[in-house]
């Protein structure tokens, strides 16, 4: 065994990474199939059913797109923070705060026309979400407090605050005492696209996705953020120091998650209620990582993971598979991809041998 050693590749695998990724997904599906068998469910048929009902039935694509919208926005936000290696686990809380901000605006100024009200709601959601991202960032730059913990705790606090509002001051008098706000006036609802069940939130996703892709690829600040991955503390832009960048990315991150909350409250539920919380903030982390923080790939990955959730319901309905199966698959995919990433960056070969994909200029020194 000592004849073989692990070497870092001269260049990370390019298209090979794609293969590795697919391999990882395949392994995950295999293990999940095994788990299905343990519970006595047909493994092969189950996995097939999952894929088919997620993507290959006529209404599945629409379902997946609807579900992908909040996942996409939260993931985009999370990915921006991850670029600076700021581990924003707080998308759930930022999402809740955004929903709260939008609701406040909708309930207080519901008499205004939609042309004014909707942008105002977006602004309110952006501010509250950004604040919820700003706080942990502030603690991090001033006190070096671990942002993982602070954002996580703020998740719980944000959700409890939402609970307090819908059980208390914002409860709809006509709701028979159930925790929900009044229904949003039509001016406050982000409408449907034509006769489909999709809403204009999809447009928001496309616009923000493209905007940030351009930002990271073509602006200096974006380049600075991208390049700072390995050595974040060396990141500087003009005269903005590292701490300023941290505050900026966390606020942007919170803003995007806040917009996801707004869209769910306005377009999907037409009111604020506790069941708006659906774990998108955590799925967002998985998506952001799998997409290697690339906005366009995030779009695809959001769609795929939304598909996972949709397909899971059919598995429940047709095969009585427990709901927790989806989480296992999500976690497995992430783990296998992480492990698989090893093969893109390293290779195992005989001690002293030439690299497998050697370029002429990479002659090994004895």
């Amino acid at each position, binding site marked *: 065994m000592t004849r073989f050693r692990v070497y870092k590749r001269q260049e990370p695998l390019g298209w090979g990474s794609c293969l590795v990724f697919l391999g990882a997904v395949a392994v995950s599906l295999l293990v999940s199939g095994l788990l299905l068998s343990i519970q006595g469910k047909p493994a092969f048929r189950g996995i097939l059913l999952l894929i088919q009902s997620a993507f290959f039935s006529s*209404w599945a694509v629409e*379902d997946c797109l*609807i*579900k992908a919208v909040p996942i996409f926005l939260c993931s985009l936000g999370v990915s921006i923070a991850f670029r600076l290696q700021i581990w924003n686990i707080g998308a759930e809380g930022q999402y809740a705060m955004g929903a709260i901000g939008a609701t406040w605006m909708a309930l207080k100024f519901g008499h205004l026309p939609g042309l004014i009200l909707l942008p105002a709601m977006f602004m309110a959601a952006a501010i509250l979400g950004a604040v919820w991202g700003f706080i942990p960032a502030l603690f991090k730059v001033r006190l070096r407090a671990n942002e993982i913990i602070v954002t996580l705790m703020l998740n719980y606090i944000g959700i*409890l605050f939402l*609970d*307090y509002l819908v*059980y*208390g001051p914002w409860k709809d008098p006509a709701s*028979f*005492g*159930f*925790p*929900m706000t009044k229904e949003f006036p039509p001016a406050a609802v982000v409408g449907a696209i034509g006769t489909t069940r999709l809403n204009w939130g999809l447009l928001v996703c496309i616009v923000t996705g493209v905007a940030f892709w351009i930002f990271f690829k073509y602006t200096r600040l974006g380049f600075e953020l991208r390049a700072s991955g390995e050595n974040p503390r060396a990141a500087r832009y003009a005269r903005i120091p590292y701490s300023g960048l941290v505050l900026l990315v966390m606020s942007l991150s919170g803003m995007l998650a806040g917009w996801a909350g707004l869209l*769910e409250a306005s377009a*999907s*539920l*037409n009111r604020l*209620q506790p*069941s*708006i919380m*659906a774990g998108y903030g955590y799925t967002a982390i998985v998506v952001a990582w799998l997409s290697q923080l690339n906005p366009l790939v995030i779009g695809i990955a959001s769609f795929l993971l939304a598909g996972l959730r*949709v397909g899971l*319901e*059919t598995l*429940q*309905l*047709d095969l*009585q598979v*427990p*709901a927790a199966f989806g989480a296992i698959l999500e976690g497995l995919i992430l783990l296998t991809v992480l492990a698989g990433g090893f093969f893109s960056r390293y290779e195992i070969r005989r001690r002293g041998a030439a690299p497998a994909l050697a370029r002429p200029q990479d002659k090994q020194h004895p």
Partner: protein
Amino acid sequence: MKKLILVMAALLLAVPGAIAAEKEMKVGFVYVSPIGDAGWSYAHDQARLALEAMDGVSTSYVEAVQEGPDSERVMLNMARKGYDVIFATSFGYMDPMLKVAKQFPKVTFMHCSGFKLAPNMGNYFGRMYQARYLSGMVAGAMTRSNTLGYVAAFPIPEVIRGINAFALGAQSVNPKVRVRVVWTKTWYDPATEKEAAKSLLDVGADVIAQHQDSPGPQEAAEEKGVYSIGYNTDMSAFAPKAHLTAPIWNWAPFYKEVVDQVRKGTWKSQSTWSGIKEGIVDLAPFGPMVPKAVQDKVLAKKKELVGGKDDLFSGPIKDQSGKIQVAAGKTASDSELLGMKYFVQGVVGTLQ
């Protein structure tokens, strides 16, 4: 010859009728929590299994469905797959169900615990408060400290109503009792619920009741050597020495009735709120520690309810601040009960 033709025609017409009467029914259930919680969804699922045992009925379910767009999608899928009857068992499914019902007029939709109707959508609930009142009578009779503890999940009307009924029942046999309420903000988290129960025990409660789906509070009572009242199902297995009784659900007869009606074409959209009389709610068997005199008293009251006399919320009823909510000589109406937002006097706790 004419007679033969007539007879044959009659037979031919009868055959499709006979086949139609035996139509295979697909019934779907949407649950808000996992079914194994020995609680709310579990009770519905037990009834679903009873339906499954019926001839020509196949059932399925999706559990842990979030209220909102997820539930809409689940119900849409069921309707698209040709389900004939869909039961949705949580208040928050109401609006999504209405949306789907409008798109599938041939499917029958039944919503539990809500208030909206449509030509093909009805709603239903059970007068659990009747059983709670009876359990309150037992608790009131068995307590020595005159403090009853109530571990409650969320401040929604049915929970508040249940607490009030429990308190009124206890006060009817023991006017000095106080009911202390602790909110856990969860339906099934045994560790949290047990901690909440312990906090009530520490302030002197010697009977623990619950509106929770796990037996956590029962364990706490058993460990301390005091009494407890279960919920949803008979929880005596978890607390044999403590468990006095439990208000329980029994959805099977109602579900069977609905499926039969749909099958025969006699189903009508309406709001059904049945109680002990119809068998939807009941009281679990008494534990061995309940004296016969108490049992008799409670069973006598139950007999009244079975007979249709429901005067549990008759005035004068005062709320915590002393204000009269139900005047003397009057009985609270159904809509007053459904939207109950106050605690009766004798209950100690917030409404948030």
